[in-house]
């Protein structure tokens, strides 16, 4: 099995639609996730990108990493722009002005800030109205593009530049906002979590999402060595530890049915996952025990939703 996962990536689609030469930091798993998603999407797609790391690293005028149609306008309106593109394609096709018989998939993408905070309302509106759009949140757990400020997706205890650890603070003092559950609560046909540490799972979920008519939401945990203050060669391993520890479980919610993508008899301790990350360095054993308790509780709650407990 471990051998398979080493060699399997060679089986992936060779064509790159998110092409080399972008300016992401060394070891950026968010850029890797985008690359894998782009492979899975193919070329019959229109991308709508929010302001954030992935937009900035891929589009310094006049260069671009995108060889598919791509539009960026603002930070918080990506779901609405995508809704506009999708509606336009729908009516133009109906009126015979778009002749391409293939279904063109509209894919919106933004960071955790663009999704869980400033673009939350536009996203909720797009999902509620039922647009045929796949929205992908690349979650690196902070506003990285502007220098590692906290977002509502930043995990408890993480030190960021606006939730710094200090004499009187232990870093972020709120639990991560549960975006996949919030999106699932909109009653949309498909919600899933993924991580580029599991490339085939990620690509399969993208392919499944685009095959479904209606709004879909994919939440991708993306290790950011710069913001997490972790070693740039450990992003893949760290992503796996996030999943193996239950900090970021992989699952799908298909037509309201919750399904775990990877179950574990025994989770690894969250301490193992947090160890290599400078953003958690200030936490004591007792602090980590509190986080462990929370993660364990959430893990069981999720397994229950999936009918496993």
């Amino acid at each position: 099995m471990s051998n398979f996962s080493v060699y399997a990536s060679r089986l992936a689609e060779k064509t790159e639609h998110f092409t080399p030469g972008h300016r992401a930091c060394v070891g950026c798993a968010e850029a890797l996730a985008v690359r894998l998603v782009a492979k899975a999407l193919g070329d019959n797609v229109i991308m709508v990108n929010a302001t954030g790391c992935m937009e900035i690293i891929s589009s310094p005028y006049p260069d671009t990493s995108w060889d598919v149609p791509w539009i960026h306008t603002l930070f918080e309106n990506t779901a609405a722009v995508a809704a506009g593109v999708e509606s336009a394609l729908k009516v133009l096709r109906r009126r015979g002005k778009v002749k391409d018989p293939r279904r063109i998939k509209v894919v919106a993408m933004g960071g955790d800030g663009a999704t869980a905070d400033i673009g939350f309302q536009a996203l909720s509106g797009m999902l509620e109205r039922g647009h045929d759009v796949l929205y992908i949140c690349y979650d690196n757990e902070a506003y990285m593009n502007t220098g590692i400020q906290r977002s509502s997706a930043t995990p408890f205890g993480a030190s960021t530049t606006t939730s710094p650890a200090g004499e009187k603070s232990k870093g972020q003092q709120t639990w991560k906002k549960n975006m996949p559950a919030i999106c699932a609560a909109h009653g949309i046909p498909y919600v899933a979590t993924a991580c580029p540490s599991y490339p085939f799972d990620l690509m399969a979920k993208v392919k499944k999402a685009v095959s479904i008519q209606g709004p879909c939401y994919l939440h991708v945990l993306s290790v950011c060595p710069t913001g997490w203050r972790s070693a740039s060669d450990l992003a893949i391993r760290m992503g796996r530890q996030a999943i193996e520890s239950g900090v970021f479980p992989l699952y799908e919610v298909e037509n309201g049915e919750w399904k775990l993508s990877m179950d574990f008899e025994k989770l690894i301790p969250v301490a193992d996952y947090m160890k290599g990350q400078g953003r958690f360095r200030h936490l004591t054993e007792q602090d980590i025990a509190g986080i462990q308790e929370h993660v364990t509780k959430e893990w069981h709650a999720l397994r229950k939703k999936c009918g496993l407990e």
Partner: protein
Amino acid sequence: MGKREGLEVSLAVAEAVKLARADVIAAYPITPQTHIVEKLSEMVAEGELDAESITVESEHSALSACLGSAAAGARTFTATSGQGLELMHEVVYIASSMRLPIVMAEANRALSAPLSVWGDHSDVMAVRDTGWVQIFCESGQDAFDLTLWAFRAAEDKRVLFPVMVNLDGFHLTHVVEPIIIEDQAAVDAYLPPNDFPVPLDPRKPVNMGTFAPPHIYSEIKKSQEVAFQGTRPVLRELLDDFAKHFGRKYNFVETYKADDAETLILTMGSYSQTASVAVDELRAKGRKVGQVRIRLWRPFPFDELRAAVRNAKRLVILDRAIASGTSSPVATEVRSALYNEEKRSKIASIVAGLGGRDILPEQFVEIIERGEKIADEGQKEPFEMYGVRG
């Protein structure tokens, strides 16, 4: 042949959007614009208009959805007012900077606080420098005609800028007027299908909205501004063409009894018609008074304005907005347009009609007379408010 109907002006705007065969409409309700989008929703529901109506959750998303729609090559319409336009503010710049031919009906409304749903020009003045073509209506016929024209202008490949059609909230949007509604064949002959040159299309991928480092930002902004300033002759030509098709001629700047006038009252929007009544009254008393009405507000029609006011001794400028901490917006614009002229009129800046307050013909007479006095004495204050207690 079109037919003349008694119609609420908002509904005439909706008729124009339908006749233009708009593809996508994205808007959010706000008084006094709401009748426009309600009517359009009804037309879509009844199958009279084959369009996608996106009932967004905010104005920010309304204009954002329009960005996506226009970028995908669809004929795109939105309507808003007051607070809605302010909520869109950030997106307003994107539409023009990305050269997306969106048409917006703007029911001009005062800005909170205090909350007021009634008309004035505070909302549009806050977006006057955003690179949209901005045109003002004076009557219901203007509103119908200029909405049709707006699609033609926005989508013309020599223009490719969004167009904002301004109608005074309530004083214009909610009145019933006799309006000629042109028939579909005539509109089709006037308005070719939208042919956006670089739509988002997987068969011919383009990237839009990449970011600009310092070494290129200025060049991009320069090219945008050169293009925008360069739209004047095209917009003029397109107004001529509208007249050829429908027999109604609109000009960037309209004049009334202005040729030999010593005093000109300068207005913008629907109060212009009331001001004309005052001009007639003063003329009847033998006073050399005339009127200048600015119709195209952006790009500002410098040449037409200078020509229109060349012989006047005094210009009394009515503004329906305050530009806090300075003179009033239209007066400031006109002053700067005339500063380098050899011969220039004395200017009186008067603010009135805020938050929906009426200006009656007899009050316009007072405004003109008061303005003449201020102009002759030289205005000391940045502007004067007319008819305000306290």
